């Protein structure tokens, strides 16, 4: 072993991978659980792992979206392909585990089954509202079906879906998304086949609106800041970050609330009294779901997918 390598080994020190040590050090705190948004802290992991999980949540956790749109009639002013695109982007409340993957090797007429496809239909026709008051100018009163929303998409259970989806019929996660505006005489009639996909293929398959992390802020006060100065110091940070104790000294109360504005650094009086840093192994994840799955489920799936990736590669033979 060369001299360099021994030095490297020493510098690696307790950096050697040890599952038990990792288990001891790893900390996960779920700080906020909402219907759509979840906040969680992942502490004592490396950036590469946190980033892998974030990337997987955005682009590799499967979800269901409309992929094939069959337009039977469209006399609206919006082109077929534009309507198809808009319907594809509508988030659907479907548990992705209930569907299987589409087999693209099969011919078109055998590809879609009740196990891998959900059929939605949209049949709307705009007509005049004869009861509307004479001086009215509001199209939603003047006409029936002037505005077509995501809630107008009707779920059409196929085969055994009648039973399997009985407890949770497929609806849009956001029913008030506007698809099109019509005028009397115009109509849209279409069928949408919704399948499983991943965000890497198309953003409509991404189960999250955003999945991001930031590092835990660290504010180090190197010199005591007292009195009026402390009050000005407090004002440099978002509310709740800095507090003043009984000795009239500023102290860091909750660094997590800090947004990393560099406001303090603009003030001459705080020069060399404060250092702004980040905790490099403390990740604050913010996961906002599209509505089909909970954020916790998405995070858990991302961990499983990362493991599957490693397992798949491990089981693949290395060819020359």
């Amino acid at each position, binding site marked *: *072993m060369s001299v360099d*390598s021994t030095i*490297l*080994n020493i510098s*690696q020190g307790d*950096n*050697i*991978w040890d*599952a038990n040590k*990792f*288990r001891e050090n*790893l*900390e*996960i*705190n*779920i700080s906020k*659980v909402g219907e759509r948004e979840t906040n969680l802290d*992942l502490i004592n*992991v*490396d950036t*590469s*792992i946190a*980033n*892998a999980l974030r*990337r*997987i949540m955005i682009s*590799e956790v499967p979800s269901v979206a409309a992929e094939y749109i069959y337009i039977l009639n469209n006399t609206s002013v919006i082109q077929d392909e534009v309507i198809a695109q808009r319907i594809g982007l509508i988030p659907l409340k479907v548990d992705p585990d209930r569907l299987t993957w589409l087999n693209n090797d099969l011919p078109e007429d055998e590809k879609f089954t009740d196990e891998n496809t959900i059929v939605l239909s949209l049949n709307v026709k705009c007509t005049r509202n004869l009861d509307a008051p004479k001086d009215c100018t509001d199209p939603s009163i003047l006409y029936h079906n002037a505005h077509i929303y995501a809630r107008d998409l009707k779920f059409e259970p196929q085969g055994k879906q009648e039973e399997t989806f009985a407890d949770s019929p497929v609806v849009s996660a956001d029913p008030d998304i506007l698809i099109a505006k019509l005028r009397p005489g115009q109509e849209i009639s279409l069928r949408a086949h919704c399948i499983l996909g991943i965000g890497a293929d198309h953003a409509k398959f991404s189960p999250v609106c955003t999945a991001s992390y930031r590092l835990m802020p660290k504010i180090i006060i190197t010199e005591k800041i007292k009195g009026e100065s402390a009050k000005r110091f407090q004002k440099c940070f978002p509310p709740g970050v800095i507090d003043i104790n009984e000795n009239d000294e500023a102290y860091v109360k909750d660094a997590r609330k800090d947004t990393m504005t560099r406001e303090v650094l603009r003030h001459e009086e705080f020069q060399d009294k404060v250092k702004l840093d980040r905790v490099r192994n403390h990740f604050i994840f913010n996961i906002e779901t599209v509505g089909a799955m909970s954020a*916790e489920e998405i*995070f*858990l799936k991302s*961990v*499983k997918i*990362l*493991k599957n*990736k*490693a*397992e*798949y*590669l*491990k*089981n*693949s*033979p*290395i*060819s*020359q």
Partner: protein
Amino acid sequence: MSSAEMKPNEVQEDTVIEEVDVEMESTVDEDKIKILPQATSEDGTCASFQIMDEDHTLGNALRYIIMKNPEVEFCGYSIPHPSENLLNLRIQTYGSTTAVEALQKGLGDLMDMCDVVEEKFTQRIKEL
């Protein structure tokens, strides 16, 4: 039960097992990973691999975990071109292990790490 009745049953079972075997073989992905001979030393302590259909997600995580192996001198990855879905991985060891072994250990360690994260996370969910 007579032996005559048993026979067809056994035969049936055998054929079922064979079918499963055939299916398993066909699912093994031969093209997933290959070793690049021009960048590999004869004793196998240094090697470069080319992995299909992977990106920074696995590349960086794998690089990190392989570097944690004290027998590994260097591990790095690159994506040669953004429009090709390939990942190149380079491993150089100090000589006490081969690059292939280091890669296998890295993948195993990464799986263990995922297990720990999953276990901790499910535990936290239960506590909510």
